[in-house]
């Protein structure tokens, strides 16, 4: 499995990286939506999950989500939005726009693992 974290905060990407390492998955990171799209291109779209912040410079999470969901190469990749509690309205919009689910900062390791499992359709027994 390959998971990409898209967030302008290095600390947040490191936190996600830590969890992805625990799960034994491969990790990719980008600091904004534009960089994420370039990385995806390089991976021929072979990424299993994208964890994406909403507020980012250059290209934010909502704009990036729109591009992903309108591109046949990427539209099947599940996207988990990583948000603040103050961004509830954006989240409703993101779910309507095709995001699989979201995780609210600050989150625990277990919460993030739960979202990743759900997004990847991993078993629960």
């Amino acid at each position, binding site marked *: 499995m390959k998971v990409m974290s898209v967030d302008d905060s290095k600390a947040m990407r490191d936190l996600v990286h*830590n969890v992805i*390492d625990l*799960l*034994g998955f491969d990790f990719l990171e980008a600091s904004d939506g534009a960089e994420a799209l370039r990385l995806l291109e390089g991976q021929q779209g072979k990424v299993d999950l994208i964890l994406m912040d909403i507020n980012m410079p250059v290209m934010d999470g909502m704009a990036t989500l729109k591009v992903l969901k309108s591109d046949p190469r990427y539209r099947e990749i599940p996207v988990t939005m990583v948000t603040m509690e103050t961004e*509830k309205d954006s989240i*409703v919009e993101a*779910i309507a726009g095709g995001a699989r689910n*979201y995780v609210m900062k600050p989150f625990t390791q*277990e*919460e993030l693992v739960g979202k990743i499992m759900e997004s990847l359709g991993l078993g629960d027994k």
Partner: protein
Amino acid sequence: MSGSTQTSVDAISECRLVQEYIERQCGIRIDDNKMYLIKTRLTALMIESGCSNFTELLVKEVDDRTHTLRDKIIDAMTINETFWFRDQSPFVVLRTRILEKMFGEIREGRRQSIRIWSAACSTGQEPFSIAMTVREFARTHPGFSESHVEIQASDISRTVLMLARTGRYDSFAMGRGLPPELRDRYFSHDKRVWQINGDISSMVKFSKINLLEDFSGLGKQDIVFCRNVLMYFRDDLKSEVLTRLGELLNPGGCMFLGATESFFYTEWQKNQGQKMVRGQDGVFYKIFEGVVQ
């Protein structure tokens, strides 16, 4: 009543509904002073599920025959505090007294195996601590093999079970109670992560179990670790679960309890006619039929 006061009353009654729901589903009582956890932990799930309040979320859960939503709610609300060799004393007693006695029975042909259940294993530290204890015992007892021991581990949370099954831990988790010599003996280190060795992880079989439901399918056990779980349960549920745990134990078996969980066993043990022994460091453990005198 003003609009904001009404909203606040509604929010409180909604949190009460969730509080009762959680207790009904998994026995965990969320104290009134921790009610804020319901809001902080379940708001995301509520919005994702297309609900505008907790009442709608619970109604949706009732309609969900796959129980996926129920599992997610329970996952979000459970407590997963754990350490390696937590309280130390139970593991010392396990190695120096219980395994010693049961191994003696194996040598004498009076016992075939030793079955151990870690009933709320969280991310795996407790069952892997048990497995390492067994391994250490085997190192000093020729003729004793890990194949004599079967370790089962369960939790109600799918999420922590997934982490437990990986057997992978970050430096923070590794720093909580694991002696360096055992870390070096039983783990490998790869960049940011410590991986438990396959010969230890293969000793533990994980499964999802809700202690409020029937767990007799696990089969009879010789040793049960049920620590720091029942302290979150209502008194009548504590007693009910304890009784069923007791029924699961083979004669001569024993049950380890949490360090702060002794008080509610006093009444229970009177009813059961069992003996409780206080271990070192204030840790209580329940002994059946005098395994440890």
